[in-house]
């Protein structure tokens, strides 16, 4: 064990059991999986994805490129970092060899989303972030403070720093307590700001119960995404230490120097017994000194610089740690089995040339190649970066409105600077770091991105292939594309590319930082928007009746519509043949409530509709209904439906089910942007009106029984008229319109009374065996009559003439939307595709919708001339055979011809007919 009793912020008195790679191990509350593994001397977590080389824990938090694990219990989750998994009792995990495993059972945990608005959002609860949050809170601002760790403190959690003569964490506790005293401060730990977008919009992932393991309460969401909009965003996200690249730098036991210091101070874990420290700057000396004080034998500090800082040299000498300046690590050796580092090769490095070599045995190699400010959130929002030669790192450059970068993230590396206070507590004066990206050596063994097995040789290959941009090299080598998104490797890659190209790194730049900062599960992004809540489901007032009746539903846009009502033993074909026979011979009834309805009111209502519809609506008399077509300015059909004139200044416009929103938006757009002088108001009343078409030769008897006070004779209640009446005191509007060619009445009623009126209709229809039918039968009935469905038989390139609907286009009106386009030469082209009927000559094949149509009875060599395609196709009870509607080039001129439709491997011969196949004379309309 390398756990130090009493050290760190873990609860040594409580022991938890967990399983890793089948081994039962122990840890303490406050541990991460990584710290608990290191406490047992386990560095290796798995193998690399391509080369199968041993991989281990390389840092103490999300920047770790190596320590990937798969969690198995409590719920399988792949590709997690051991360093960011908070340990809990009963955790079962195993090391990953490249790829993880998704759960094969649904994730039953809840995920959610929250919204917050703030004057100031502070990201990061380290010294700089806490200072910013305190300053804003004291000024009375509404503050949100988020931090990705389990507790506030940031880097202070992993050091022995002091503030004002007391442990720094005392200052952190006081700051957190003070923030808690402000009612307008929201402080969220375990919350990672992962995306920074326009105008102060930040997404943050809060992990609420994952750390509780099996004890997580079911009623609390596991994670939730905060959508935060802030006037000011303070980015106080700290910095990531980066390594230096040398041969075989990818072994377990090789770790960032700050990581080992964090494992020591925060978790009371010594990451090794025999350490070597390799650094290019001052900060790693603190790791060496602290580890030595904790009992690790530090065999050498190898400082690549010519001079060691005097303060730290003295501190090392006091502890007997040899400091070797001008020295670097050139390679490593590993232990059999785990591959953990067992020795390092060192050499002097002067003017880029390696000199005198040596070998030091060790089980821990700490590396520090400098610090990269975590500028991700600044950069994501469009902030520019510049390379600071003094720091050897990219830092924020210039202003970004509403964004402030504070502390280490801004390149301020001393604690006093982060606290915005007098440097009375300051430690030793810093000395400049050396920028060293890599040590000379065999490129193919020098790993730039250990998560991707990408080496210096891969970069050289990319450059050899002619690539010069870091973005191109990234994509060619995959450097920076793993779970860590290159937190430790990205800038190193830039440095090595610059070095190999002989250009300054400040000119080359670095790759663009994109969200998310750390991986976010799709489940969290989806939140509650999954399953039935993914998209709103709309149901009619009769939905429960349909369900009870055993309807098979289909989705029509967001609506759930009954497709057919199978009787025992019936499949869809059988049910639809029965339902459509009933509607043509007896009486059927449909729930047509999903039809769009728009209440058009105002003195200029008729003027608006005359401009929107292709036909004349102003001449419609109150009490009557007219079918109309709406076109775009390009003259192509947009929607169709009936228009019912309620009064001089009021119309009820029916749209298709799918076109309801489109038509309302379309009318609003013209009204607001082109004709604001028209006094018209539009309101959607789709949900308010329930609509029940009662269809078939016996429908008159049903309506007469429902509303005996209405004279239903053909003379008194003609086609395309409507009448208001009451049923049991409930106002009901009955319109004689037909979408089937049969005698039909549409019964409209306030949706609150829909179930009652529906039941009355069923009662009234019982003597006639009234048959409820669904959308499939509705389609068959309308297709037999050649009535197109906009969006199925049309596709935005079909004009009214193409549908044979010249009769619906007014010649009287001087203008309406689309009229001018009808006069274009192309719109008059007789070779345009036109809607026709098709009858398969074998009287058996139901042509698949979408099938192509050709003119020859054998398939010619490609390219095959296509004449059109099948748009609707059904079995017809009335015709006793299948039929189809199709858009066919010059279709109306082809009526009577035989064309061919490839179906499977065969060609099916079809006769071209007019689009109206049932009752072309319209004799059934009046019953």
């Amino acid at each position, binding site marked *: 064990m390398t756990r130090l009793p009493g050290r760190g912020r873990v609860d040594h008195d409580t022991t938890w059991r967990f399983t890793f790679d089948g081994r039962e191990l122990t840890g303490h509350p406050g541990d991460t999986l990584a710290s608990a593994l290191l406490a047992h001397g386990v560095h290796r977590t798995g193998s690399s994805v391509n080369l199968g080389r041993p991989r281990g824990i390389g840092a103490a938090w999300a920047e770790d490129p190596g320590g990937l694990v798969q969690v198995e219990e409590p719920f399988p989750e792949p590709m997690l970092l051991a360093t960011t998994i908070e340990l809990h009792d009963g955790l079962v995990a195993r090391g990953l060899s490249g790829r993880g495993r998704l759960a094969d059972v649904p994730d039953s945990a809840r995920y959610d989303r929250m919204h917050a608005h703030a004057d100031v959002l502070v990201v990061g609860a380290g010294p700089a972030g806490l200072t910013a949050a305190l300053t804003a809170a004291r000024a009375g601002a509404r503050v949100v403070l988020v931090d990705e760790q389990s507790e506030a403190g940031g880097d202070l959690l992993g050091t022995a720093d002091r503030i004002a003569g007391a442990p720094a964490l005392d200052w952190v506790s006081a700051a957190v307590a003070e923030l808690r005293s402000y009612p307008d401060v929201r402080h969220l730990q375990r919350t990672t700001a992962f995306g920074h977008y*326009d105008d102060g919009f930040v997404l943050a992932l809060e992990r609420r119960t994952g750390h509780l393991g099996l004890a997580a309460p079911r009623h609390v969401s596991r994670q939730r995404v905060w959508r935060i909009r802030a006037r000011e965003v303070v980015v106080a996200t700290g910095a990531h230490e980066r390594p230096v690249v040398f041969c075989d730098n990818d072994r377990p036991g090789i770790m960032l120097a700050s990581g080992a210091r964090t494992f020591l101070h925060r978790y009371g874990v010594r990451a090794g017994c025999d350490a070597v420290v390799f650094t290019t700057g001052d900060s790693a000396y603190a790791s060496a000194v602290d580890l030595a004080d904790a009992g690790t034998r530090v065999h050498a500090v190898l400082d690549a610089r010519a001079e060691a800082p005097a303060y730290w040299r003295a501190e090392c000498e006091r502890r007997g740690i040899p400091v070797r300046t001008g020295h670097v690590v050139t390679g490593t050796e590993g232990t059999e089995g785990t591959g953990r580092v067992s020795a390092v090769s060192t050499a002097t490095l002067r003017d880029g040339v390696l000199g005198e070599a040596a070998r030091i045995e060790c089980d821990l190699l700490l590396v520090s190649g400098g610090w990269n400010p975590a500028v991700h959130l600044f950069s994501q929002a469009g902030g520019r970066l510049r390379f600071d030669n003094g720091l050897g790192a990219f830092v924020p450059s210039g202003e970004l409105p509403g964004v402030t970068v504070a502390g280490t993230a801004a390149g301020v590396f001393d604690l006093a600077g982060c606290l915005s206070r007098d440097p009375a507590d300051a430690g030793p004066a810093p000395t400049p770091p050396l920028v060293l990206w890599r040590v000379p050596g065999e490129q193919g063994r020098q790993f730039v991105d250990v998560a991707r097995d990408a080496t210096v040789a891969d970069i050289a290959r990319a450059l050899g292939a002619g690539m010069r941009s870091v973005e191109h090299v990234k994509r060619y080598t995959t450097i920076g594309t793993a779970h860590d998104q290159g937190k430790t490797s990205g800038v190193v890659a830039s440095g090595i590319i610059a070095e190999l190209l002989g250009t300054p790194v400040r000119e080359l730049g670095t790759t663009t930082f994109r969200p998310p900062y750390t991986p976010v599960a799709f489940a969290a992004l989806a939140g509650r928007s999954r399953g039935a809540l993914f998209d709103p489901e709309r149901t009619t007032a009769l939905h429960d009746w349909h369900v009870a009746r055993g309807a098979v539903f289909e989705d029509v846009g967001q609506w759930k519509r009954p497709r057919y009502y199978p009787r025992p033993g019936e499949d869809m074909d059988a049910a639809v043949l029965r339902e459509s026979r009933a509607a043509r011979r007896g009486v059927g009834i449909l729930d047509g409530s999903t039809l769009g309805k728009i209440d058009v009111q105002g003195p200029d209502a008729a003027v608006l509709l005359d401009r929107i519809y292709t036909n004349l609506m102003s001449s419609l008399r109150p009490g009557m209904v007219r079918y109309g077509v709406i076109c775009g300015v390009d003259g192509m059909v947009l929607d169709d439906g009936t228009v019912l004139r309620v009064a001089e200044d009021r119309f009820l416009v029916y749209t298709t089910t799918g076109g309801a929103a489109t038509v309302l938006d379309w009318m609003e757009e013209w009204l607001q942007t082109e004709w*604001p002088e028209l006094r018209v108001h539009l309101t959607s009343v789709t949900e308010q009106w329930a609509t029940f078409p009662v269809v078939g030769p016996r429908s008159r008897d049903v309506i007469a029984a429902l509303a005996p006070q209405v004279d239903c004779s053909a003379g008194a209640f003609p086609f395309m008229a409507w009448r208001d009446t009451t049923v049991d005191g409930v106002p009901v509007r009955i319109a004689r319109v037909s979408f089937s060619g049969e005698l039909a009445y549409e019964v409209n009623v306030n949706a609150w009374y829909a179930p009652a009126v529906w039941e009355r209709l069923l009662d009234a229809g019982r003597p006639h065996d009234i048959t409820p039918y669904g959308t499939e039968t509705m389609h068959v009935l309308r297709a037999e009559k050649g009535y197109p469905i906009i969006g199925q038989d049309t596709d935005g390139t079909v004009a009214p003439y193409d549908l044979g609907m010249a009769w619906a286009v007014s010649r009287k009106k001087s203008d309406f939307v689309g*009229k*001018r386009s009808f006069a274009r030469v192309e719109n008059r082209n007789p070779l345009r595709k036109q809607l026709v009927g098709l009858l398969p000559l074998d009287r058996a094949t139901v042509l698949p919708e979408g099938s192509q149509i050709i003119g020859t009875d054998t398939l010619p060599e490609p390219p095959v001339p296509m004449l059109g395609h099948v748009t609707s196709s059904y079995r017809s009870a009335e015709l006793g055979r299948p039929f189809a509607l199709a858009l066919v080039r010059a279709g109306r001129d082809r009526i009577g011809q035989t064309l061919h439709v490839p179906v499977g491997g065969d060609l099916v011969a079809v006769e071209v007919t007019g689009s109206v196949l049932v009752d072309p004379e319209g004799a059934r309309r009046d019953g």
Partner: protein
Amino acid sequence: MQLIECPWCGPREEVEFHYGGEAHVSYPPDPSTLSDEQWARYVFFRANPKGRFHERWSHSAGCRRWFNAVRDTATYRFHGVYRPDEQKPVIP
């Protein structure tokens, strides 16, 4: 996701809005007098500048009203919004 200033409602989330293409393309007073090409210019042709662009937006998930905006197509930033009955604003 930007905040877009609706002239009636104030700043609202971008997802509440719909884009409506170039502004100030008015419906021709008498389309029947136009040649096919002139008509096609109205129906199909729109400017596509890099930089400031006068365009239409609709607060479709809010007040459902249309308005005009001046937006930079290169930076996406809005430089001003105005109601359909207002003059184009002068933006420095």
